[in-house]
């Protein structure tokens, strides 16, 4: 599962928008979860204070990151776990592969984890002869379909149940008359397949929602209970976490576990919250490995404005409220991190050199709905605007039409006389295009506007001309 699709947002969104089924699936799903979230958030009178607390905890944790990570390492080791440091995806995959191989495992079971998608772990394991089996239902669907997740929380949001039935018929050799598209029947098929894996596969791999430096406790939050199976049944457990997931103290979870479920699945509490600390004799995995992954994160931390992106707790509320995500879907972002958070996280993690990365900060109308719902108050529009500046800096050195246009407009705006002359020039320049006080067709990049929208023509008298005539010179 590759981390990136090099297609720019603009191109990928165009294709996605031509798919009416996708538009319907997404519109329906995001509308439902938006309304549900509003209801459960309204139940808490101190929701805004909780958001403030969440933001403060993450800011504090990021400021003390090196110290907290060392403390986490010590706590995990004390509790009988092993800690591994991975600077990038290749290192992380090597670490995991060698642990799996040391147990002669041919299969591993996995808990839904975007971090493992980020590093392309499943493909890396396959190269070393190990099959990774996704146990989250939606992740399993995506895996069986050789597809990619399109949402942080609901990876198969782009598929409906009849599409899933077709997939299961093929993947599990089921006769059509033996399976309906009832959710219960579909879940039963997955349950039977997975139950046998839970009982036989010796190694499990998870991500982490939180890790507590104070105690060495790692936490995974989920809905299905399949994660709990992975965390308790196999002999060996490997957890891979981005270094930004560390929290100072156990009591920080009091805030985070209120913020996360309400923001993500719009539930008061999620069905399964697992917390584990090292290993315990005759109970659960007897070997525990924690892989701490950097993969670009320290670089993000070095950026005064962009570092807020590391506060993300992967709730996906920003995706569900985003009007751009709702129309274009997750695949258009070409990354395992779609939506508004992806638009600020992906380009920072991978760097702004590619056309794909450069397109992401512009995949937003800056409406601010994401910032309004973010449980840890990441000012996503601010970072988008800031990153656009970084993209433009990256692009200098070769001629581009937009840059020339905006720079000359700035030159015009820097002087009121030039500005008035430009107003007059626009009045003359529009003559070939303006009909009945409107412009319906323009050339060049402006066709992006006029293909679907008219523009008003420039009227004879500007406001300042009116003022001069009626109010005299100011």
């Amino acid at each position, binding site marked *: 599962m590759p981390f990136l699709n090099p297609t720019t947002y603009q191109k990928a969104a165009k294709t996605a928008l031509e798919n009416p089924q996708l538009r319907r699936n997404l519109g329906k799903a995001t509308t439902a979860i938006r309304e549900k979230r509003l209801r459960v958030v309204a139940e808490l009178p101190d929701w805004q204070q909780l958001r403030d607390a969440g933001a403060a905890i993450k800011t504090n944790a990021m400021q003390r990151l090196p110290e907290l990570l060392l403390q986490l390492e010590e706590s995990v080791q004390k509790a009988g776990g092993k800690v591994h440091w991975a600077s990038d995806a290749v290192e992380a995959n090597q670490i995991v592969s060698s642990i799996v191989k040391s147990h002669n495992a041919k299969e591993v079971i996995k808990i839904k984890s975007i971090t493992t998608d980020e590093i392309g772990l499943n493909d890396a394991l396959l190269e070393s002869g190990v099959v990774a089996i996704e146990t989250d239902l939606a992740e399993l669907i995506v895996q069986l379909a050789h597809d990619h997740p399109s949402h942080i929380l609901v990876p198969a949001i782009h598929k409906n149940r009849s599409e899933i039935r077709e997939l299961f018929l093929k993947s599990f050799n089921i006769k059509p008359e033996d399976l309906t598209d009832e959710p219960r029947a579909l879940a039963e098929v997955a349950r039977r397949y997975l139950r046998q894996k839970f009982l036989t596969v010796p190694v499990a791999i998870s991500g982490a929602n939180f890790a507590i430096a104070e105690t060495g406790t790692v936490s995974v939050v989920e809905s299905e209970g399949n994660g709990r199976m992975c965390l308790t049944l196999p002999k060996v457990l490997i957890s891979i976490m981005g270094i930004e997931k560390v929290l100072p103290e156990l009591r920080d979870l009091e805030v985070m576990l209120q913020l996360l479920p309400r923001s993500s699945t719009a539930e008061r509490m999620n069905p399964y919250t697992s917390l584990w600390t090292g290993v315990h004799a005759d109970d659960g995995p007897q070997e525990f490995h924690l892989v701490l992954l950097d993969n670009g994160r320290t670089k993000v931390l070095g950026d005064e404005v962009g570092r807020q992106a590391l506060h993300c707790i992967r709730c996906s509320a920003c995706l569900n409220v985003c009007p751009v995500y709702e129309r274009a879907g997750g695949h258009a972002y070409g990354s395992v991190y779609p939506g508004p958070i992806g638009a600020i996280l992906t380009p920072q993690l991978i760097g702004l050199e590619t056309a794909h990365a450069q397109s992401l900060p512009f995949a937003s109308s800056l409406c601010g709905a994401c910032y309004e719902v973010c449980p840890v108050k990441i000012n996503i529009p601010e970072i988008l605007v800031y990153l656009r500046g970084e993209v433009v800096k990256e692009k200098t050195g070769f001629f581009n039409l937009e840059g020339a246009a905006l720079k000359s407009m700035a030159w015009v705006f820097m002087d009121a006389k030039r500005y008035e002359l430009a107003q007059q020039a626009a009045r003359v320049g529009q003559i070939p295009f303006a009909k009945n006080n409107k412009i319906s067709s323009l050339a060049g990049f402006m066709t992006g*506007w006029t293909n679907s929208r008219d523009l*008003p023509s420039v009227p004879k008298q500007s406001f300042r001309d009116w003022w001069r005539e009626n109010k005299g010179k100011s």
Partner: protein
Amino acid sequence: MKISLFVTCLNDTLYPQTGIATVTLLERLGCEISFPFEQTCCGQMHLNSGYQTETLELVRRFLDVFEKEDAEYIVSPSGSCVAMIREYFPKVCEWAHDTALETRAKVIASKTLELSEFIVNILKLEDVGAYYPHRVTYHSSCHGLRTLGLGDAPYKLLKNVRGLELMPLENSESCCGFGGTFAIKNPETSTAMLSDKMRCILNTKANTCTGGDNSCLMHIGGGLSRMNTGVRTVHLAEILAQTEGRA
């Protein structure tokens, strides 16, 4: 009360009637208005397109122009330009590590207000004596709604307009898809957002869609015009400026 008008480059050039209505309305409400001729653009388009060097120059210029004014407030009939001044002027200076300019920006930011919030929160008026006998729906532009937190100020003003029937708009808080150069850079996504917005507007059966930002209204109006819907877009200032017997 003495105020300075920042009309915005868009209104100055394309929507002079909005600027004229703002002047008519505020003078009727007892304000003494000055219009500094040196004003041009706040730099919002440059910032949102990533041209921070040019933005910083325009911010400095804006401060130079409006610091000379002795008005109590700077009032503007555009939510997004006011959001630019209040929210992003200080940020742009901070990003450029120019603390002196940031201090100046914060002073100007603290006295700059969008038209509807100025009337409701400063002048403490909800009934401005307007008359507008039409069925109207209100589009709450994102910057006004979220960055400025205008809340129900525009609704309070509209509810008191005689003859006006205010039609509630479904999904009123969702973006129309304008987003400045977003509409040109990502025309397909932008148009998909616009078509949903237009559907909601048409469902209200209103004949007029109003709002506090001519940039969004230019976008919505451009779509409604292309579809020949017969629904027009009119800035809130123009509705509030109109009185009985004076169309």
